[in-house]
């Protein structure tokens, strides 16, 4: 096999002024946004309904005009920028940094304020928004905090994260005797929490061990496949899981200890407090984890896996650890969710949900606990509001999630409230100095 002549020659092409190209791009973007914001939906009988509806409406003119305005403003800005050679993005990061700073007082005050707000404000919300807070915001914030360990700290991509959520929920259903297969005893959901954590930890280790020995990016596809298998299992293994019907009547949490009797009910507010208590514990623990040997080891793997291994960091072990910690957090959330809703079926855990949680982590800023919490809270609360106001159809939310992921990655891959360390990594990676994930080939090259 020989390569004859050099494969590509320099060819002279007629260059279109890039400004007009950009205008074209913005116009297409405007039309696309017009289509995306249309509340109609196509049907197999008339495939062109949405397109014709969207492109013939007068609103299209508005979107296109907006696109032209944005383009013009950006061109003016660009012309001004041309003068300065070094943009902020490529400027080398400098300056001193604290290694292990004590949390300053202002930080504590802010934390106290947020906690007070989280406790007080929901009491004044309508029942609808209270429900949104618990069923959407709280559940997904918990999930996002767990996924952040895998994606943000260890730099791995887990696309089957919600499968562990399902495993946790079904574990809860099993031990509360809500499934067709029953244990001889029923347990309180509080007791099931550690069991589900153990089950998901084990499942995570079993799945991660063969995969993580290899390249990090294979984990993405294997976890996606794992989610599919879990789905198939839940749907098809009727006599165990109840099939498509799922499980009903999962009991609520209750306390029956030392003469204290309390039982959670359908009311949202008590569950809200349970969830934020759980979240507070997790955030407390994970924050410590990040600023410990474990967190630093993850950072070293993200930045340079070869150097980390050469300096004694067992890279596979730490990746596996992150993956398993994420899985157990997901399982823990599953128990809370199952008990809160009382009814689960395979449709509660679609594959798109894993990607949705991922988008919350990305949007907020991977690696930053505050960012991830804010990101998940915003992206669950806002769609609920939009849906209630009938601005966006529920079916279209995955489309918006996908768009947000792409746009964030192109323009602000560090997220809304990035962690300082992560931002530095991405900036250094842009200059070809460091890496920022654990995706490259494992340090033991196989020659």
């Amino acid at each position, binding site marked *: 096999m020989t390569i004859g002549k050099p494969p590509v020659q*320099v060819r002279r092409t007629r260059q279109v002024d890039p400004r007009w190209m950009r205008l074209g791009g913005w116009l297409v973007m405007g039309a696309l946004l017009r289509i*995306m914001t249309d509340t109609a*939906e196509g049907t197999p009988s008339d*495939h062109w309904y949405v397109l014709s509806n969207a492109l013939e409406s007068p609103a299209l003119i508005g979107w296109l005009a907006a696109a032209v305005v944005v383009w013009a403003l950006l061109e003016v800005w660009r012309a001004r920028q041309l003068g300065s050679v070094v943009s902020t993005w490529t400027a080398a990061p400098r300056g001193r940094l604290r290694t292990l700073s004590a949390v300053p007082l202002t930080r504590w005050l802010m934390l106290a304020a947020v906690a007070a707000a989280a406790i007080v404000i929901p009491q004044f919300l309508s029942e609808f928004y209270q429900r949104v807070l618990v069923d959407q915001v709280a559940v997904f914030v918990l999930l996002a905090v767990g996924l952040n360990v895998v994606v943000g700290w260890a730099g791995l991509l887990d696309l089957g994260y919600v499968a562990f959520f399902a495993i946790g929920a079904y574990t809860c259903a099993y031990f509360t005797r809500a499934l067709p297969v029953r244990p001889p005893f029923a347990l309180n959901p509080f007791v099931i929490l550690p069991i589900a954590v153990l089950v998901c930890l084990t499942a995570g280790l079993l799945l991660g061990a063969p995969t993580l020995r290899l390249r*990090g990016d294979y984990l993405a596809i294997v976890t996606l496949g794992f989610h599919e298998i879990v789905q198939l299992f839940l749907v098809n293994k009727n006599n165990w899981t109840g099939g498509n019907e799922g499980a009903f009547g999962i009991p609520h949490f209750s306390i029956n200890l030392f003469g204290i009797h309390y039982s959670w009910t359908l009311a949202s507010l008590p569950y809200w407090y349970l969830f934020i208590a759980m979240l507070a514990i997790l955030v407390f623990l994970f924050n410590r984890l990040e600023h410990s040997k474990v967190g630093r080891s993850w950072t070293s793997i993200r930045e340079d896996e070869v150097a980390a291994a050469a300096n004694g960091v067992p890279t596979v072990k730490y990746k596996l650890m992150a993956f398993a910690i994420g899985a157990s957090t997901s399982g823990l959330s599953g128990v809370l969710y199952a008990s809160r809703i009382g009814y689960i079926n395979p449709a509660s855990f679609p594959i798109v949900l894993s990607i949705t949680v991922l988008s919350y982590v990305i949007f907020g800023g991977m690696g930053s606990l505050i960012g991830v919490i804010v990101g998940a809270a915003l992206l669950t609360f806002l769609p609920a509001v939009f849906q209630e106001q009938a601005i966006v159809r529920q079916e279209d939310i*995955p489309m918006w999630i996908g*768009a947000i*992921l*792409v746009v964030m990655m192109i323009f602000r891959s560090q997220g809304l409230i990035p962690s300082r360390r992560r931002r530095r990594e991405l900036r250094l990676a842009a200059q070809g100095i460091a890496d920022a994930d654990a995706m490259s080939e494992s340090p033991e090259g196989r020659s």
Partner: protein
Amino acid sequence: MCLTQHFWQFLIPGITLGSLYALIAIGYTLVYGVLQLINFAHSEVFMTGGFAGLFIAQALVTTGVTPHGADSVLYMLAGLAGSAVFGAIVAFLLERVAYRPLRRRNAPRLVYLITAIGASLFLANLAGKLFGRDKSNIPDLYSNGVVFTLFGAQVRVQQLVIIGSGLGLMVLLDTVVRRTKLGAGIRSVAQDAQTASLMGVNINRVISQTFVIGGLLGGAAGFLFGTYLNVHYQMGFLPGIKAFAAAVLGGIGNIRGAMLGGLLLGIVESLSQSCMSSQWIDVVAFVVLILVLMFRPTGILGQRLGRAA
């Protein structure tokens, strides 16, 4: 026992399905070869091909009567060409809009993967919004009769058409990659992008070409798959993952490996239907994927695009 009993009945559908997996797997393997990226959105290129084929067939067959003879051949060629072109357009735009800005600033691999998965989600659900979320059937372009019987198994026109088109496209691609300047460019970038660029290869153009070639094959596969089953906004998801598994099975980055892996996976999947209930079939591909990763991570034919193509 269970394997031998219906061997031939399941072998032919297996090869049919396998040639479709092979066509998609080539797209994954090409992109992985030049960018080291699992292009999750490739499954949506496949879906685009399915929808393009659907609309072309609907435009051609308006009377509801199944065409025959020369009409059938012409319509099939039109469907293949049209779906391939639309697949290529989507793949090209995907690279231009989503991946190129990342490449320009040397983004970490995680960022690429997230972009890919986001683009996949966006495209699938945009199609769902535009064209409806129910399944649509492509009108018949030829009458699907039995051609001959092989050891008691009936072989239908459709199966022959799919296998024939699939193999034809694969041979064509293999020749292009091995014999042409374009193929040499792709191989050089796959082997060592940096050196290739020093030797005067325009990396951006080669990457675009790679996406276009993968898109052509993926789009055509989408149309063929649509005639075989149906067209649906999420039709790309499962075949996409399975084709990736096939690419890993054959050796990721290796074109002939992708072809071989696709065919093998289709056959294994179909044959296992005789041993287990069909609802578990989708598990087979993942089990194969995990087994390959555990025991022969470089795949059957090894990993390099430059070496084995």
